[in-house]
């Protein structure tokens, strides 16, 4: 049985893609004509799957070459998986905190211990600024979910990417295409009381596994278990001065 959990996460900040794309292709076919002569379409896949790409990543330093080779070595052949984060930093409902440039910040880094000390290498804890929970349990293949969202600087309205960590199917992402008006909600999550908004969302990728009420939803850098598409490989290439601009494509892992 393919294993979708306990996988490494692609460090998208380190590979510095110049271009990214995420898509939800589904299988549809031309379904003939109706009595008015208009063509109809038949969707046969019961919901889409996720496909994505990071293109023209920046690779020059030895460590970057190491990392690119690790990705290729792990993923070539399309049968091993990894967790791929979606760069939703710019469009998500994230707060604009201090600093320049004033960009939305999905994750706060450098949080010290309670005594103000950082780790020995200067790093601190990190925490998502916006997160959510399932307000109600939902069944396998559910296309409508009720969620609570905490810390958002705007209401959910058109579409946002989200993901959750299933116990068997691992990280799975979706975005919504229909959103109810927000309702106020308060909830205690891990001992901390949060106030936020509750929404009923219609999602474009149905749930891959049933979820319980209270299960955490990630809006900051949502992620999905992905593999390389069949037939795709990522070669190790380098030009003068050891520059390399590798591109990688992903499809949802099954």
């Amino acid at each position, binding site marked *: 049985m*393919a294993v979708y959990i306990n996988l490494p996460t692609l460090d998208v900040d380190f590979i510095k893609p110049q271009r990214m794309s995420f898509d939800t292709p589904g299988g549809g076919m031309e379904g003939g004509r109706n009595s008015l002569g208009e063509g109809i379409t038949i969707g046969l*896949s*019961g919901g889409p799957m996720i496909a994505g790409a990071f293109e023209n990543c920046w690779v020059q330093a030895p460590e970057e070459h190491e990392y690119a080779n690790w990705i290729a070595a792990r993923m*070539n*052949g399309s049968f091993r998986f990894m967790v791929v984060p979606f760069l939703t930093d710019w469009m998500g409902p994230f707060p604009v905190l201090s600093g320049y440039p004033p960009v939305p910040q999905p994750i706060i880094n450098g949080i010290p211990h309670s005594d103000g000390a950082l780790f020995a290498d200067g790093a601190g804890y990190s925490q998502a600024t916006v997160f959510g929970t399932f307000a109600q349990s939902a069944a396998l*293949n559910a296309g409508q979910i009720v969620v609570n969202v905490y810390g958002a600087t705007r209401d959910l309205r058109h579409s946002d990417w989200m993901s959750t960590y299933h116990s068997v199917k691992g990280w799975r992402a979706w975005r919504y295409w229909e959103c109810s008006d927000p309702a106020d909600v308060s909830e205690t999550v891990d001992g901390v009381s949060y106030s936020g908004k509750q929404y009923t969302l219609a999602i474009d990728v149905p749930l891959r596994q049933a979820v319980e009420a209270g299960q955490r939803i990630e809006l900051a850098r949502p992620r999905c278990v992905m593999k390389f598409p*069949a037939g795709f*490989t990522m070669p190790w290439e380098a030009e003068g001065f050891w520059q390399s601009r590798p591109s990688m494509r992903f499809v949802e892992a099954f």
Partner: protein
Amino acid sequence: MVPAGVIAALRGSHQLGIFFRLDLDPDPLRLWLGINDIPAGIESVDATTQETYLGGGILQDVPMLEAVLNGVADRAEFIVSGIEPATMARWNLDEVKVRGKAFHVGITTLDDYYQPMSAVVPMITGRASRITEAMPPVTGTDSPTVTLALSVGFGITTRDRTSQALWSPVHHKAAHPGDRFCDGTARMERGAPVTWPKF
């Protein structure tokens, strides 16, 4: 009987779910032509309408299915590809288990939220006669997938495929060297009086 809501959906652009059910013992093999696993059921044969139908991938050969639905073919091969090998491993499919089992193909439409709009409506019922399970060797960048072909007979005029081999005295001797127990069977079949051998 197809519910009116499903018929209305079929008149326009819609999402179609095609479901296969093979009545294996003890657990039926349930597949449907979608990506995700889905809770669904055929009311007349499934205990509930919330049985898990496994996502079997995209139908490889759509015209074949059409031919059967229109009643043209009395024997058909259903070919489904793209099944994950681990999924298939959950059923120990061999011919003895499959042969003669009831086989249903049903449809229903899915609503905007990917939920079946009704219980699965069985369109055709047949009897399975043999299954072909193939996992071609994969090289390089290909993913291993299983292609499952099921030969199914429909109606009363069906042609059938035998699964029996002729058990000859030679076979018996191969398993039990020197045993002449079956030596007389060929003559017995012709109606010749057989002298029972003295050992």
